[in-house]
């Protein structure tokens, strides 16, 4: 297979623009190289919701994050 040869020989992989357009792949993407396949994923630049995370639990808990986690996981200890 052509792809196998490209990977084996370490050549550049060029994907035609028409093919990318057909797959609706535009803008930022992630290319994930696995052992036997390459996955192209659309990358999202959205980070706005991350700021929503900060402080969501403020004033609710008296212990720190590691203590809270340990307390919960203590229930699993044999």
């Amino acid at each position: 297979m052509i792809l196998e040869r490209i990977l084996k020989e370490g050549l550049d992989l060029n994907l035609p623009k028409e093919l990318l357009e057909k797959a609706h792949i535009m803008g930022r993407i992630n290319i994930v190289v696995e052992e036997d396949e390459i996955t192209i994923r659309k990358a999202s630049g959205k980070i706005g919701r991350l700021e929503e995370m900060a402080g969501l639990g403020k004033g609710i808990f008296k212990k720190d994050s590691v203590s809270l986690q340990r307390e919960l996981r203590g229930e699993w200890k044999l």
Partner: protein
Amino acid sequence: MEAVKRVGLDTNIFMGIFLEEKDKLEPSLQMLKLISNGDLEGVVSSISLIEVATLFYQKDESQKGRKAVDLIRALSNTTIVDVTADMAINIASTKVSERLSIADAAVMTSAIELRSDVFLTYDNDFAKVKKIRCMKPEDYLKILKEEGVQE
């Protein structure tokens, strides 16, 4: 062409952000930004979602608990790993060999199963783990800086 590195995220990384914990907030948020930007990929065990929700529910904060879980699930470039029967043996083996609790082993095994580069946690119980590199976000950020992944 270099593959995007995967990072496993422990529950305390998210709780540290939710609690706005001094010293933990900035490096943890920076990691999530690198993941959201596609510079890294995140790996989160579904057990972490249960733990986050439970902590909020225990405090009668179900709405915030649901929001916390939704925010984690909405993270870009992040895979939520369900615990499956296929993982049972690996979790058990990790639990015994690394001397962890079952939950610690299950959460960390999700990262290992997806061939993560590192498992990020603030819990020192993972300090002696051999199956995967375990470290704090700030320590991994230093490594990424040396590798040129982040400026």
